[in-house]
């Protein structure tokens, strides 16, 4: 059973070095609260792949678009 306990938007943090120009626009146009920073101190992941910090938790993936979709599928408060 899946219970969605909250549908509030997520708090997303991304690194300036990790997002492409297109990803920056997509993140900006999303319904989520987005912060772009100089460095989130996730340099190893930043070097290797796309990542977001979603409500304080690291999520990695092949692209920010994929990550955004995963956030929409599993919003804050997601429980399984």
């Amino acid at each position: 059973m899946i219970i969605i306990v909250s549908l509030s938007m997520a708090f997303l943090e991304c690194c300036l070095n990790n997002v492409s120009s297109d990803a920056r626009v997509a993140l900006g146009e999303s319904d989520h609260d987005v912060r772009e920073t100089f460095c989130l101190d996730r340099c190893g992941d930043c070097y290797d792949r796309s990542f977001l910090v979603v409500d304080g938790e690291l999520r990695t993936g092949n692209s920010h678009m994929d990550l955004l979709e995963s956030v929409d599928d599993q919003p804050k408060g997601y429980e399984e």
Partner: protein
Amino acid sequence: MNVLLVSIDSLRRDFLGAYRDTPDVVDYEVKTENLDRFAERATVFDANYAGSLPCMPARREWLAGVREFLWRSWGPIEPFDRTIPQLAREEDIVTQLVTDHYHYFQHGARGYFEDFNGFDFVRGHEYDAWKTAPREPDSELIDQINANSPESQRFLNRAAYARNVEEFDDYSDFFAPKVFSKAVERIEGNSKWDQWFTYVDSFDVHEPFHCPEPYASMYTDEDPEDVDLPVWPYYGRVKEGQSELSKRELDFVRSQFAGKVTMVDEQFGRLLDKLDEEGLWNETMVVVTSDHGYFLGDHGWIGKNDPPVYDVLARTPLMVWHPDSDREGEHVDALTSAVDLYPTILEGLGINAPEWTHGHSHLPVTLGEHDDHRDWALYGYWGATMNVTDGQYTYHHPNRGAEPPLNHSTSMVNPYGWFVPPEVQQEATAGEFLPYTDAPVWRYAPSNQDGPEEHLKVSVQHDEPLLYDTEMDRRQETNIADTDAEKQSEMLNLLVDAMESLEAPQTEFDRLELGRSA
């Protein structure tokens, strides 16, 4: 004349008794009796500002005299730089570096330690790629340093710190005690040479704020090993995201920062004792400073880099002892800048500074020959906001994102990703782009800033102009940019004048949407 330069990383000046009785963010006094002891004999500069931020850019200012952030991000010493130890060698002056600052030995920086006749590197601080065992380090410390993936082999894994300190037993195993022990030894050895320059570069009080006893319990009643209490917070806002801290957590972080300050102070006192013991004060100029401060909840931030470049970060401690100075213990309000240390130290050593340096020696202030020094100081991070002060007002101009910043270097570095392997800059062009050298360099934008103009906007630090009167509003809590248009215009003109006098590239004016002076 010998020169001893001591830099204490991330040292907020309000934690020093010489600058303030009680730090701004705590309600207790922090013991700094040795730095205060030094201040009683030194010229204490009340308006010293950082230049290029953060760590390594500051060191290029000090050691090579280049105000780099207008042209370049964090990077190596360039082939056209003339570092202090290079110039000192030509005068048969012995040079020595003692440090635990591992950034010298990491991706993103090279050429900083190689010019010294000798260097000591105390291993293990922060992310230093040193030990690979034990595979499963102390789980309590893993929690306290927020090491999320101890098994990961990716770059900059926080678990590296836990492995590095796994066998530490008491305070003498920690970094500042080791650095200053080695420094005392080197001072004694170098005193046998005719002339020397010794640079003690302490990475403490930089995070992790992992303190040994008695310092860990000196300013808190908490259990310093409580796994719920962080010693290595993420940078960012204290009320949101991965950097969020409760009041209890923030209070604890502050206490551990304070503990580190006192630990470093006690170790610094050993250097003073050694100068006493060897009778070196009459033949040694001593400079104590820091590269930048550290937000401890000030303005709602922890760490550095993303907040506006407030004085808590940029207005740094500077104290200078020179045996020919009559300004013992005197506070001076002359405006000085990090890059000025380069010609100041060279003058102390009796070496003429190269004409192209961006610094101006402030030794005449210490010697009582001048009271004033600079009309402006320019400071900031490459590609971000542009900040200027006249010593009273600070003006902070936002990055408009109209153009990508351009990095200028003989190396292809990652302008935003300093600590990982460099990337090939396919779009780089080469040419004589720098006003202070005819050496050709690469010029390139960050590789992820290749989109149309509207895609470039980066909102780090701040979006709107900020203006503060630091005499009326020392902690910069009231932005007067909207209420004092005349002063804002005056400071904007000063900013443009400063950039023009340094011959900043046109792309800097463009990205900041700044016009040239009339």
